[in-house]
């Protein structure tokens, strides 16, 4: 997902407070920023929301890659509006993280120096226009799987950010599918592009949910805190079940020979992605890790004079106002 393999912290707080806190979560209460919370809950959330926010920001890049090459004015406007939404979603999430006592600049620094991660999916390149469709359809589709349940997460600001994000994202997946449909019903070359995009994005999309976490202690803790609602495997299965008929409708083939309907479980059996590739991407060895980080570092570095210039002006005019009074 946008927040993959988030490690939870072990709690060292007073057991009585911990029990009362857990009881509130179990009762479905929302935890608000100024209320008592275990230090571990706070730290885990900062990591998770921060990673989620970073993913939105880095996620602007692969799609932004095609804004200047969009083939019609309408497609250009749609794509631009969509990538702009990603920036907005990053902003909402950073603000949610900030209520936990970390600054956005702090989080940004940690992204840029590699101490914090973003989703593996954004280290894959967008090579053809069909990839823009595939990203909307598959990547946003996978993200929505996770974000919809997170609207019910226990931390109030995170939950509210997810509600806003889900409301805005509902058009993202649809525009991706609409684009894919134009390609899949187009010329032979367009069809080939659509199939090629599906071939390249299928397994990276499955990886977005992270490796199986049935045995993970981090997952168990996060689920108890309701900052994770479903297991990775549950969401992955749901995603495959939803996506297979959509691909069939487009006349595209999912690149998996083992894909077969399983009557017993009422879902599709499918091949696992290559997890060694996933770990390499997380380590920085994906096709685009270096380019993505360089782009973000450059934007931040080149923007410093702008941010400082505006701050300096605000200070000056505040001082002038005081002097005039």
């Amino acid at each position, binding site marked *: 997902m946008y927040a993959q393999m988030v490690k939870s912290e072990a709690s060292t707080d007073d057991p009585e407070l911990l029990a009362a806190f857990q009881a509130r979560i179990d009762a479905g209460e929302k935890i*608000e920023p*100024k*209320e*008592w919370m275990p230090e571990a809950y706070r730290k885990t959330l900062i990591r998770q929301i921060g990673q989620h926010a970073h993913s939105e920001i880095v996620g602007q890049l692969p799609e932004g890659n095609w804004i200047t090459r969009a083939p019609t004015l309408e497609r250009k406007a749609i794509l631009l*509006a969509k990538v*702009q*939404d990603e920036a*907005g979603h990053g*902003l*909402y999430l950073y*603000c949610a993280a*900030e209520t936990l006592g970390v*600054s*956005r*600049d702090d989080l940004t620094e940690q992204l840029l120096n590699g101490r914090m991660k973003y989703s593996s999916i954004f280290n894959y390149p967008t090579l053809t226009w069909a990839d823009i469709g595939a990203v909307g359809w598959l990547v946003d589709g996978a993200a929505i799987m996770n974000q919809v349940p997170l609207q019910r997460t226990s931390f109030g600001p995170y939950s*509210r*950010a997810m509600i*806003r994000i889900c409301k*805005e994202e509902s058009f993202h997946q649809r525009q991706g599918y609409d684009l894919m449909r134009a390609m899949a019903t187009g010329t032979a070359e367009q069809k080939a592009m659509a199939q090629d995009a599906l071939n390249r994005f299928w397994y990276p999309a499955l990886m977005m949910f992270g490796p199986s976490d049935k045995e993970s202690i981090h997952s168990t803790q996060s689920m108890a805190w309701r900052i994770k609602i479903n297991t990775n495997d549950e969401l992955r299965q749901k995603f495959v079940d939803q996506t297979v008929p959509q691909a069939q409708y487009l006349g595209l083939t999912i690149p998996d020979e083992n894909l077969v309907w399983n009557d017993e479980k009422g879902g599709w059996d499918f091949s696992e992605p290559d997890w060694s590739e996933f770990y390499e991407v997380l380590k920085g060895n994906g096709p685009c890790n270096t380019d993505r980080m360089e782009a973000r570092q450059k934007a931040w570095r080149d923007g*410093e004079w702008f*941010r*400082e210039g*505006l*701050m300096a*002006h*605000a200070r000056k*005019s*505040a001082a002038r106002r005081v002097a005039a009074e």
Partner: protein
Amino acid sequence: MSSEWPLWEVFIRGQHGLNHRHVGSLHAPDAELAIRHARDVYTRRNEGVSIWVVPSAQITASSPSEKGPLFEPANDKVYRHPTFYDIPDEVGHM
């Protein structure tokens, strides 16, 4: 000196006649820019007719540990609610 822009809380009136509602926050060097950023960030889908911004640092919040004393005393003041009173049907709507 940190040059991070301060944080602002954003309140938007969605339609004429409604209250301003808290919609989120953002960073801006001063109030004027905070309003503009709020327009760009929080009304992309035609969500507002009026914007308020307040420096987050200026918000004074009630303390969560005071929740009991602050809010529970209102629990048993049932007579403040109109449904507390029985009005005979013959009297009609009141």
